[in-house]
């Protein structure tokens, strides 16, 4: 080219490994390496760099899950093992993100059941797992340790660490070699601060994924989009404390007015478009793991990512 395009980027996103195959000490069919980018998303053609990963979100107590998904997925929602298996074999996800919503009931204390659930899901699906543990500081430690222990060797991604509560999850991740999701509310400085806190207690930089919090389309996405861009941009400019891959999960998407109140005949379409639009725009802003809840969103995102990046990495053997 005659023109010399200069962006002044010199930073690289730290690579994080997710999932472990047999040769890597786990039981997953795939393992992924995310990160490694040196430019804004999709501007470079690095052979073997992975397209953004698509994680399908499930839970072990669907009481508060969107009615749209309950009706689309049917009975599966009551059996998270089968649901996870279907995410792999039918829906075609890259990862499964399991929310341990059962732990969110008042006075929950059955930690053994958490272990069982994780075990079941690990045995039913061969995809790498993201696990969302408890929401309650009192049981955090036990829940996270249980997840960590059951998933030992599988290089899980554990969520979610926040500025006020990150020790239990960090301890579990370090003890069993898993990675951690670090969530901060839509702010580049808070994201940085949390990464520093995690670094200080010993979580290594290649075990952290940033969740800048994704407001759903029309309800905060305008801020989240910028937060992702700013994190990625700062990293590209050399800020090492922000040079981490980003995960995007717009958990409120299926409850926003446009989706909730859509006519029944097109409600699934609206839900899918809302997730797709958010996920693709977030990927363009820098997110490398895109979480969705509607199975039909997966093939659409997959097709777009394939056209944006030619190769999917499969770093481990079988």
């Amino acid at each position, binding site marked *: 080219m005659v023109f*010399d395009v200069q962006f002044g980027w010199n930073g690289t996103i730290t690579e994080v490994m997710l999932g472990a195959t047999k040769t890597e000490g786990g039981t997953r069919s795939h393992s992924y390496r995310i990160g490694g980018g040196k430019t804004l998303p*999709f501007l470079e053609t690095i052979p073997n760099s992975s397209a953004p990963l698509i994680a399908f979100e499930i839970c072990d107590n669907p009481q508060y899950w969107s009615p749209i998904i309950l009706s689309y997925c049917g009975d599966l929602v009551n059996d998270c093992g089968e649901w996870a298996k279907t995410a792999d074999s039918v829906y075609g996800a890259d990862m499964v993100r399991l929310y341990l919503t059962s732990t969110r009931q008042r006075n929950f204390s059955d930690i053994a059941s958490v272990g069982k659930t994780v075990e079941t899901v690990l045995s039913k699906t061969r995809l790498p797992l993201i696990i969302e543990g408890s929401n309650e500081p009192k049981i955090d430690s036990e829940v996270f340790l249980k997840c960590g222990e059951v998933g030992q060797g599988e290089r899980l991604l554990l969520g979610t660490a926040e500025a006020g509560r990150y020790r239990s999850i960090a301890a579990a991740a370090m003890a069993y070699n898993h990675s951690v999701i670090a969530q901060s509310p839509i702010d580049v400085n808070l994201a940085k601060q949390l990464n520093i806190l995690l670094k200080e207690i010993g979580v290594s930089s290649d075990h952290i994924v940033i969740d800048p919090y994704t407001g759903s389309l029309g309800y905060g996405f305008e801020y989240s*989009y910028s937060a992702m861009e700013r994190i990625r941009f700062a990293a590209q400019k050399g800020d090492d404390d922000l040079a981490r891959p980003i995960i995007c999960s717009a958990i409120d998407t299926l409850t926003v007015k*446009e989706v909730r109140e859509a006519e029944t005949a097109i409600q699934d379409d*609206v839900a899918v478009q809302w997730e797709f*639009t958010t996920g*693709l725009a977030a990927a*363009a802003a820098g997110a490398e793991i895109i979480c969705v809840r509607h199975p039909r969103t997966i093939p659409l995102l997959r097709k777009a990512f394939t*056209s*944006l990046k030619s190769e999917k990495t499969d770093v481990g053997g079988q």
Partner: protein
Amino acid sequence: MALKALDIYKLLPKKNCKECGDPTCLTFAMKLAGGKTDVDLCPYLDEGAKAVLGATTRPPIRLVKFGIGERSFAVGEEFVLYRHEKTFYHPPGILFKIADNQTTDEIQAVTTRVLNESFIRVGADLRFNGIAIENASGSADTFARAVETVEKTADLPLALMAKDPAALSAALAHCGTYRPLIHAATGGNYNEFCALAKHHDCPLVIKENNIDKLAQLGKDCITKGVQDLVLDLSPDSLQAFIVRSTNIRQLAITRVAPELGYPVFLDASVMDQQDAALVLGISKYASVIISNPLPQATAKAALTLRQNIYTDPQKPIQMNPGLYRVGTPNKDSPVLMTVNFSLTFFTLQGYLESTRVPCFMLIIDTEGLSVLTAVAAGKLSEMLVKESIKKFAVEDEVSHRTLIIPGYASPLSGRIEETTGWKVLVGPRDAAEIGDFLNEEWKK
């Protein structure tokens, strides 16, 4: 490189005569530095200064206008690669495409839809912008007839998509005075296309799949006297679009390649994934996007994304603080307090309207922050509530002294009671439950 305001000031006549529309030469210099005004507005600049300033102070991306009348729109005049550095100013126009060999009914239906369909979100009226007519038939007559049909149905901005200058000329006979966008001049036909664009004073898309060739073609068209250019990078994949569009934006705003300082055009309808192309076009610098008429689900998502990306993230859309009425409230009607973030206001207002209970909404100035955000940031305080009650004379409007506050503001309830002397009722967190709440708690 852009000049600083003081450097520019040194080159100005320093007469402070106000003829440029600015109060002083210095303010004019500051505006020039921000690309917000035009050097030509100062009549006393000498040619040398003009030459220096002209090249560096015009907006790095030219403003190009389409159509005339109410629905006309302008794109370009953007300054940044990242919207948080400044903001994005001109949302892309999205035009629905029709083929000239479709039936008259079909053409009218799409045109009427673009004319009338509107999607109201947070007080803004979101619409598609115009119609792109493609000369799919290859016949000049058919093309002209289709353009005439659209033209008779609505005054909307048009894009004329043709390869044959004769077809274009026939179409321009119908709509040439309404500033349609002409698509597209290429290395092979630019002489004829430029002549038509110049004759009708229309913006012109230039099309090449290589940035160097595109820049050369742009120069050629300018030499022919066409200034309002739009760039079609004819990407063959989503990745090709992002790469070319990002490079062009960067080259333009850094003024490395002023010949690329024009808005970008994207025909999403010819990409193999139209929905994905729309999303990426909106987020990655396309200014004119062509798509086939969209189903409802996609239409709303695309318009919402466009609204989000073109909202200044540093300035949430705000309401004026004050006392608003829902229905015709009287002295006994409830008063509900909330913040001046427009999304919050319109969400709550929507639910209140459907409850059919007349009431007052007291809107507090939280600088556009939502309830939770304002509480977390300390922007919603009992003092502010007290001042607002006074300022908006709420005590003259109602005879009771009970204030309903949002569920998320419950930590403030005690302090608000103490400071204002009003009784506080903590409402639900979710505005969707406001109807039940008013029926159960208020009517008691």
